[in-house]
């Protein structure tokens, strides 16, 4: 196990380096950062000087090398736009994003899994069909449309919930949390629902599909024959056997929630990393993008490592070390 984790961390370094390399090779296609860094009246000479100072005219391998060397020292550069250290900017946004994605992941799981189980058990029932159909509307409408409609309904018409932002936050060290204030909690509701909707549908349908198969297996039948209550048969025995794909997808989705909840964060002006990132793309803020992508790569390696470890905890047959 220890060697497994160690190996993964080692691989993560390679992954991050590769991500940085690819990132640097692609930046030139995103646009010219200089235009966002100067006003329209700035002379061509000044622009060129700036590009020179930033090293933008160097071949991308050199830019990458510089980035990698600095990164090793923990220096991820300075945002072109904010002129602040990138690591600081990202760190500031981390808590907002993590809280939002945590809440929506929990929502998605807490609603998605039981609904999935229910719809599998009552596959032919009207309620299940209703749930299945409704959930699809959630995925087929674009996120921005859903977000706006929610804002319109709850923010503008009913005026129950705030339309944007994170509300008041409490700082605990560098971490800021919205969990401790009423306005912070209220602000979480709409964006987390918007985000969760898609995950929920996906998880629900996955669980349903897998449950339908597992429910027909002999061991479920035997569990019933032993007289185990439905709750135990469905959740302990059947559900657990559907978990491998569910864990996989949950892991992936959680990763993309943390990294790329771009549309939701923009619609609700949620001051998270997704917003920072999309802003960085549109401003061609290369240092933010590069550091961000590398960080995300690290996240994904870690999340997928946890997923792989979860496989082993969930399914004993996968424990590679069962033969000595």
């Amino acid at each position, binding site marked *: 196990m220890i060697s497994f984790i160690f190996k993964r961390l080692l691989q993560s370094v390679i992954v991050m380096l590769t991500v940085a390399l690819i990132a640097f090779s692609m930046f030139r296609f995103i646009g010219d950062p200089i235009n966002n860094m100067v006003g329209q009246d700035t002379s061509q000479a000044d622009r060129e000087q700036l590009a020179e100072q930033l090293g933008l005219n160097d071949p991308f391998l050199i830019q990458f090398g510089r980035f990698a060397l600095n990164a090793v020292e923990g220096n991820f550069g*300075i945002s072109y736009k904010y002129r602040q250290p990138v690591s600081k900017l990202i760190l500031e946004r981390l808590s907002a994003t993590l809280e939002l994605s945590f809440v929506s992941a929990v929502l998605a799981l807490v609603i998605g899994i039981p609904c999935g189980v229910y719809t599998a058990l009552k596959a032919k029932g009207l309620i299940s069909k209703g749930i299945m159909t409704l959930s699809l509307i959630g995925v087929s409408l674009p996120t921005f449309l859903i977000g706006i409609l929610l804002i319109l309904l709850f923010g503008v018409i009913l005026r129950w919930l705030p339309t944007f932002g994170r509300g008041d936050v409490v700082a605990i060290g560098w971490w800021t949390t919205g969990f401790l204030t009423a306005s912070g909690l209220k602000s979480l509701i709409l964006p987390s629902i918007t985000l969760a909707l898609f995950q929920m549908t996906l998880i629900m349908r996955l669980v349903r599909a897998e449950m339908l198969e597992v429910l027909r297996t002999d061991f479920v039948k035997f569990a019933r024959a032993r007289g185990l209550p439905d709750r135990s048969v469905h959740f302990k025995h059947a559900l657990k056997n559907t978990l491998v794909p569910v864990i996989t997808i949950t892991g992936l989705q959680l990763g993309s929630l943390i990294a790329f909840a771009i549309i939701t964060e923009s619609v609700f002006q949620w001051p998270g990393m997704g917003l920072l990132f999309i802003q960085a793309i549109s401003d061609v803020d290369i240092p933010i993008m590069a550091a961000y992508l590398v960080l995300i790569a690290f996240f994904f390696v870690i999340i997928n490592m946890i997923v792989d470890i979860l496989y082993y905890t969930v399914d004993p047959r996968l424990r590679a070390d069962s033969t000595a």
Partner: protein
Amino acid sequence: KTFKFAFQGDLSSLDPHSLNESFLLGTLGNVYEGLALYDPNMQIVPGLAESWKILTPTTWEFKLRQGVKFHGGQDFTADDVIFSWERAGRDGSDQKVRNSMIKSITKVDDYTIVVETPAPNPILVQDLPYLFIMDKEWSEEHGTTSSTSAAGDNAGNYANLHANGTGPFMIKSHEADVKTVLVRNKDYWDGDMPTNVTEVIFTPIKEAPTRVAALISGELDMVYPVPVQDWERLDNAEGVKALTGPEARTIFIGFDQGRDELLYSNIKGKNPFKDQRVRAAFVHAINLDAIKEKIMRGAATPTGLLAAPQVNGFVESLNSPYAYDPEKSKALLAEAGYPEGFEVTLDCPNNRYVNDEKICQAVTSMLAKVGIKVDLLAQPKSKYFGKVLATSGYDTSFYLLGWTPGSMDAENVLSSLIVCQNADAKKGMFNLGNYCNPKVDELTAAIGSETDQAKRNEMIAEAFKIVKEDVGYMPIHQQPLSWGVSDRVTVNQRADNGLDYRYVIVNE
């Protein structure tokens, strides 16, 4: 009283010299001040300088306001002016243009300075409102004697996240892209300013619908910009209204008239845009009124001139647009040898100007009706500018652009957009299609050093007239300012889209 508002973008820095961009300057204009200020109608009024006079064509004397204190309590003196001017010219500053308007500053006494310009400059004060004055001691104390820059290693630049100006508001907190809070400066020198606001909370909100929703729901007192199509909705909603007016920005379309063959066209071996008839055919094919009615919801001002009415040197008589006449357009094309029309790619930003992409689409469809097949390449502004500007060698054949002269003077329009491209002289750098007429160049040079306003305006008019006859550009309109304001507050809408808190009143 608290005033809450949202803008689509963010205050990227608190450093007054870091970026020459209107939102940053407009906002910091409430914290820092220049020697001169804009009044609500964008007229120049005394600011940190009480008065000024021209000594010789190239020297000016400024009398500085006495008794002004910075937020940190330091006194404002001539040293601060000289320091700030120097700082604006140092590496990393984006205010070098404004710095270069002045050749030197001599301190006469603590409250008198003499400014020398490199050439006679009748409109020097026009450039002063945004040359913000910082405190010398404070800056030196915090090691921020040159501007915050992304290049180099001055990430810790103090002025990037802290401000110490003389303005009516002080920065209380600033989280980049999240929230900025300002509070009233009780010791502000101008006790008569109308505002009753004691606290201002600014939040960037990127998405227009969210912005509008936040306004209607009453969470914010003012948001801008508001999509023009939402005006009706705002006016119908209770407690809010749209506040609109013409902006000093002119939207226009340019042609590549420099190359011998267009980069993006099916005509090979020659450049149809070099033919004045072709350009004329294009401008007559466009129905500007339709664009105004349908796309801008009646709010734009169709124009025939690249300078807006607010701009010094505006020529009323030239402002009427080219007539919409598709038949004439077809005839001109046939005459020029393109009876079947031709193909060309139009470069267009899609998140820079009001309804920019929609305008391009409309233009595309109007040109289609006279036989010109336009391929529309609409891109976000960073990609768009990355493509069409000098950095990429003006990689365009046909493009849409908007322009507000920074100095609010027509000379800026002429020397940026209309004179022949000349990299050495740093002229015509935004003349992306390289429209080039030596006579206009001559006139522009003369205008630059002419101090007699009347004569100067005459020459400006003459230059614009030539451009119009040449059909050097296809002006579209002056785009509207579009703010959404709650009935709770009264604000002053400045033509450069600046929000001056001095004139914000919260009525309750």
